């Protein structure tokens, strides 16, 4: 990795200015004239003027779109003919790179691509290429336990040339068999977030219905994509998550900061926690489903807080707090045994950016800071993920490289640290994405 640029900013700007010299006004006039001329020709031959839609044109466009949809469907058909060979690994860390989904050996850092579109990725582009345009994996969900252990769910979005990015669909990947399935389609036009129930039977879809100023929709389908229920809200549902038994969904209202739960197949919406001045973010069920933890920030006190409450919101109490408001979503995350809670905090303070990871007992005792990157201008990090045995925490981090004074950041990487803060190690150079530390199902005899 090169750490010192041979070309200075001034040299680069000088070169770009030369390439992009301000054009002759006549040239700009010619461009306008030619654009208008071609636009009129399109209008004459195709009627492609917005607002003018002859029936014949619509029929032609519909046929073309159908053909295009078919081509895209074929292009996106995933082939994973053989079970994934994880060797003797008992668990892997799932993440994504520019080419698809990857599995990382937590202790050697070895990486294995476990899913990618049919078309090969054009390294080093940072997005996946799918036929007519680049795409990227937008969000990940995972089945954490149960009979379908090892079932991943994820959504894929595509950036078509000249169009907004669109969700292509939801997919599942069974780590045991390597089988990939595409669910019928996302139930929400602009899907933001997906989750999969612990038994692998239900998929949660959420996102804007229509434009980003319309209603926000939650929808639950079975594993085949058949709709079970859906509901609309007038504000975004922040990180909705299934309870372990999939009977309830927990989410925070993005604008109001109120913590909600939905039960009874979408029939009952209850306010779980609401306190004036507190904006709740990132609620998470405990592994046994009897409690919940959530992050909140207090605008008045300028504090970031972690709370724990019963599953119905009762007995809520604050177990940790830190100065400054949370800049991004970073937990809290329960340990597999439900005894500990890990959370990350990235915030901007007058003294500089800060990223830190804490572990605290679910009762508020024994708080330990296990990672700190303080007072730099550029600090980034990811949500922590617990190892299946609850001994380790994985997270992504990248901090300002101390060798340079201009704020350059070092290569982002995957880090591991023990629950007590010991054993900090950098495992692999990977981009900072959501990490899921997934136990692997026993291999077939």
């Amino acid at each position, binding site marked *: 990795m090169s750490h010192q640029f041979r070309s200075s900013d001034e040299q680069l700007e000088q*070169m770009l200015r030369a390439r992009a010299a301000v054009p002759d006004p006549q040239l700009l006039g010619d461009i306008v004239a030619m654009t208008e001329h071609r636009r009129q020709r399109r209008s004459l031959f195709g009627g492609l003027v917005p607002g003018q839609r002859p029936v014949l044109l619509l029929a032609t466009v519909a046929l073309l779109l159908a053909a295009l949809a078919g081509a895209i469907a074929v292009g996106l058909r995933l082939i994973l003919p053989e079970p994934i060979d994880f060797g003797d690994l008992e668990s892997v860390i799932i993440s994504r790179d520019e080419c698809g989904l990857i599995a990382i050996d937590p202790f050697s850092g070895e990486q294995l691509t476990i899913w990618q579109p049919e078309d090969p990725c054009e390294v080093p582009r940072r997005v996946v290429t799918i036929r007519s345009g680049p795409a990227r994996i937008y969000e990940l969900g995972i089945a954490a336990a149960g009979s379908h252990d090892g079932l991943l769910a994820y959504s894929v979005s595509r950036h078509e040339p*000249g169009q907004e990015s669109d969700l292509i669909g939801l997919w599942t990947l069974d780590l045991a068999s390597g089988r990939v399935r595409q669910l019928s389609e996302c139930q929400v036009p602009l899907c933001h977030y997906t989750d999969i129930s612990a038994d692998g039977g239900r998929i949660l879809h959420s996102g804007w219905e229509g434009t980003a100023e319309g209603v926000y929709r939650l929808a639950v389908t079975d594993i085949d994509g058949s709709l079970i229920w859906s509901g609309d809200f007038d504000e975004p549902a922040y990180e909705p998550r299934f309870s372990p038994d999939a009977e309830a969904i927990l989410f925070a209202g993005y604008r109001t900061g109120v913590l909600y739960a939905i039960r009874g197949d979408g029939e009952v919406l209850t306010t779980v926690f609401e306190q004036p001045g507190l904006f709740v973010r990132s609620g998470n069920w405990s592994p046994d489903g009897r409690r919940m933890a959530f992050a909140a920030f207090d605008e008045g006190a300028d504090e970031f807080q972690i709370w724990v409450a019963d599953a119905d919101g009762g007995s809520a109490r604050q177990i940790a707090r830190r100065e400054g408001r949370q800049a991004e979503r970073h937990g809290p995350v329960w340990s597999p045994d439900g005894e500990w809670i890990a959370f990350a905090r990235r915030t901007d303070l007058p003294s500089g950016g800060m990223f830190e990871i804490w572990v605290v007992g679910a009762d508020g005792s024994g708080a330990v800071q296990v990672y700190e990157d303080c007072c730099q201008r550029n600090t980034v990090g990811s949500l922590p993920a617990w190892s299946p045995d609850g001994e380790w925490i994985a997270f992504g981090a990248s901090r300002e490289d101390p060798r340079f004074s201009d704020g350059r950041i070092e290569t*982002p990487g995957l880090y591991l640290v023990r629950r007590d803060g010991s054993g900090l190690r950098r495992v692999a150079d990977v981009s900072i994405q959501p990490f899921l530390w997934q136990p692997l199902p026993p291999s077939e005899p």
Partner: protein
Amino acid sequence: VQERIIPDVDSSDLPSTFAAAHQRQLIERAADGDREAFAQLVETRLERTFRTAAAILGNEADARDATQEAFLSAWTNLPRLRDAASFDAWLGRVLANKCRDLLRRRHRSREIAFEDLSETGQTDAGLSTSALNAAFEALSVEHRYLIVLHHLHHEPVAAIAERLGIPEGTAKWRLYQARQALERALEVEA
């Protein structure tokens, strides 16, 4: 075309909130097929769009074509744009795609067309301008676009992040990667 009670004004004279609203109305009118509204959108963006294309492509003729194609595509696809506020980000993506298409079609990835870029020109630090140009031409369009936004148009990282719809940290990292790619290409040129 539906009539609207919106005066045609120079948005540069308006306070920012009103200017944004005016731009939004222009975009909505253009999406409805109002040619005058679209012409106003083009007029205020033409020079920057052309300079962006020229910087990416390094060739005036290609830049002119990419600019035309981008605006034509915008005119045709504007009704499909869901959020008027994202028009400029969307137009930027359209332009980048047109630049990429042009490069693929014409295989000019190493061509230096501007006459004022002397083969023996030196920058202040002695780095050959032709080498810097050649290195830049070796980059992907995505990397070129990022570098142009930041180093030519002086867009801060936060603005680039908003334009690309990605977190600021990601934008900073991508920009850093683009710059690293340029350095690697420079090493090859050297």
